[in-house]
C-alpha cells in the first residue's frame, strides 16, 4: 500500500508560465524522455524533457505531490524516476504511488522500470 506524499514547492519559486506542451499523461504518449509533475489533485502532467523544465510543467510556482522523469519506448514506460532538481522528492513510497497513478492514467509500466534515487546520493535502486 503506497501513500501519497506531501505537497512540495519548487526550489525555483519563479512563477514561470506553464509550458504550452504540458498535458495530462495518458496512454497515447509517443516514445521519448519526459519530465512529469503530479499536481495537487494527483494528476500527472508531462512535458518533453529539457533543461530546467520541471517548474514549467505546472507553471506558476505551483506545489507538487511528486515529480521526476520517465522514458517511453515502444509505448511502454521503461524507466520512471524521482529525478528532479526542482522538486527533489526523496521518498520511495511517493515514487511507487506515482507509478500507480500513471497506470490509472493509462500508461503501461515495464517490470523493473521504477528506479529511485536516494537523497543521500547512494546508488539508485529498482523499486518494482
Amino acid at each position, binding site marked *: 500500500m503506497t501513500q501519497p506524499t506531501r505537497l512540495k514547492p519548487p526550489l525555483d519559486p519563479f512563477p514561470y508560465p506553464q509550458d504550452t506542451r504540458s498535458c495530462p499523461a495518458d496512454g497515447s504518449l509517443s516514445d521519448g*524522455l519526459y519530465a512529469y509533475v503530479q499536481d495537487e489533485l494527483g494528476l500527472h502532467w508531462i512535458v518533453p*524533457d*529539457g*533543461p*530546467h523544465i520541471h517548474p514549467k510543467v505546472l507553471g506558476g510556482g505551483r506545489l507538487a505531490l511528486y515529480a521526476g*522523469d520517465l*522514458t517511453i519506448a515502444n509505448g511502454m514506460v521503461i*524507466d520512471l*524516476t524521482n*529525478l*528532479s*532538481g*526542482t522538486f*527533489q522528492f*526523496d521518498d520511495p513510497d511517493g515514487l511507487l504511488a506515482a507509478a500507480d497513478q500513471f497506470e490509472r492514467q493509462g500508461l503501461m509500466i515495464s517490470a*523493473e522500470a521504477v*528506479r*529511485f*534515487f*536516494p*537523497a*543521500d*546520493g*547512494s*546508488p*539508485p*535502486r*529498482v523499486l518494482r
Partner: protein
Amino acid sequence: MRQSIAILEDNDDRIAAMRRYIADKFPFFELRVFPTAPEAIAWLRDHLSHVILISLDHDLEPSSESQADGDPGTGRDVADYLASQRPQCPVVIHSTNVRAALAMEGDLTESGWQVERITPYDDLAWVAEAWLPLARRLIVVSAKAVARTVDAPTPAAD
C-alpha cells in the same frame, strides 16, 4: 556512500553548462570536474569505487595553473589508467578529436568498460541535447545492476 560523477574537461563554458545540467538532473550526486589528466587520475585512485559515471574529453589546453605544474595530459591518459582497473561504471567520451576518441574507446572496451562516444557540435548545444540525455540513460540503467547487488540475500549475522 554518495556517488560521484567525474568529468575531465578544461573548457570553462562546457564546465559551466555541465554543472548546471547535472545539478538540475542529478541533484543528489557529487560532481567532480578535473581540468587535467593527472588531477583526474589522482582522484580516481581513491574514489573510483564510488563513481557512477565518468565523462572524458581528450584534448586539454595547458592553463596557467597546470603550466606551472607541467603537462595537463590528455583524456587518453585517464582512459589508460581506467583500462588498468576493474570496470566500475559507464564512461562517456566527449571529444571532437575523433581519432583520439576512437583510440580511447578501444582501450576501454577491450578492458571491459561500457563506453559511449559523442562528438560535440554547435558550440554548447550538444551538452543539453546529446550529452545530458546520454548521461541520464547510462545512470538510470545502472540502477538495475546496483539494485540486484543491494537486494541480493546476505548471510545472516551470527
